[in-house]
């Protein structure tokens, strides 16, 4: 019923023995203590606020078992900034009011992190990329504007500078 697993979250290695049915999102929140990753739905996996980056891809951590992530490298919202320096996407959300209560924000940032690795700068493409995260208070207009700013800021960087913001 249980298994020992090791998951690297934001460069920190966490080893624990968990039940097979234990969800990845609970490993992140309860074992690694990274509570920036939120939970917004019961079973359906539709709100997207639990999104984290697993081995480079944005996935909903409520739709993955922790045992399935044994050996994986994760990036969560806590790993996005470099010390005091915000990720260009975080800075853009702050500058352009991409959040109010902030409940959905970790899901948007981690989903858009994946999109921004190879972005398409169009409103349509951005809206499609973030259709798996629901925001119930800010609305999407400011978020789209923030993503466009982040695309521009990242595009102006040298490839090495840009790569620094995409460790996974």
């Amino acid at each position, binding site marked *: 019923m249980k298994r020992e697993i090791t998951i690297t979250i934001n460069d920190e290695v966490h080893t624990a023995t968990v039940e097979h049915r234990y969800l990845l999102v609970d490993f992140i929140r309860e074992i690694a203590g990274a509570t920036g990753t939120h939970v917004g739905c019961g079973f359906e996996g539709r709100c997207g606020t639990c999104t984290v980056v697993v081995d480079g891809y*944005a996935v909903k951590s409520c739709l993955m*078992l922790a045992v*399935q992530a*044994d050996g994986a490298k994760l990036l969560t919202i806590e790993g996005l900034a470099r010390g005091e320096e915000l990720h260009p996407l975080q800075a853009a959300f702050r500058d352009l009011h991409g959040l109010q209560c902030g409940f959905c924000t970790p899901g948007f940032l981690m*989903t858009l992190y994946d999109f921004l690795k190879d972005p398409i700068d169009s409103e349509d493409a951005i809206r499609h990329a973030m259709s*798996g995260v629901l925001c119930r208070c800010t609305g999407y207009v400011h978020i789209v504007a923030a993503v466009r700013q982040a695309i521009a800021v990242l595009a102006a960087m040298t490839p090495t500078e840009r790569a620094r913001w995409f460790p996974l």
Partner: protein
Amino acid sequence: MYPKPIERYFAPRNLEEALRLRAEYAAECALIAGGQSLLPRMKARLASHRTLIDLNHLENLTGIESVMDCVRIGALVRHRAAAADPRLRQTASALSDAAQAIGDLQVRNRGTVIGSLCEGEPASDIAPAAIALGAHLRLKHTVGERLVPVTALKSGVIDPREVATHLEFVTPTPGTFSAYLKVGRAAQDRPIIGVAALVVFDREGRSTRAVIVVGGVHPAPQLALRAAATVKDVLLTSRLLTTAGEAAAAEIATQDDTMASAQYRSQLIRSLVPQVLAQVLARFRQEAR
């Protein structure tokens, strides 16, 4: 919500081992690929399994390859990879359209094309596209294998000792163009109606073969044979496309359920069939240029 306790979890590295475990635990086990259909069901307690066999670590099932005159898609090809594959986009666009139409970015990152066919859910985007391409599922068990046409997939067809390893179809001949379009309740939703169309054009632009498949209807996707006949052996015009839409709406039986009324579904068929055929025609014209 939490799945019921899972007693055993296996993550085999090779297919032989997966097949052996599958045979050993048979009806009490479930295979898990992307888990995007299985885990919500297990969390909602609509399903419970004492044994899970995780396919994600199997080797050699992550590719889209050409083998002889066939295209073979491995069991671990995610929707995202299928949607982005240049060869599929070129020769089997209906399938890349369908993969791109699924859920959202996160679901496409994890969910597999084959998992979508194995879940036995009528509201699937992949099934109509796979049927339009004449695709088969390769099912293996410890001592043999068989090919089952996607049209024959309903719940119970896959034996609890089998693993689907590949989706296969004959590489469409030059002049073949296809597309898939859907309407769901929201951007990330399953199809209320989804329509796949495939047309083979000759040099003059006449259609020599046409297939139209409507998904989102019960109990499985249906072939719109009369609608397809209206666009065969002709030069496609916008009037003909409208006629095809009318024919499909008339011949496909639709159902009322929590997602939509039967009448609304018929209306969607009437409007989607011409749109998807127009897309096929646009792809043909673009290449003809």
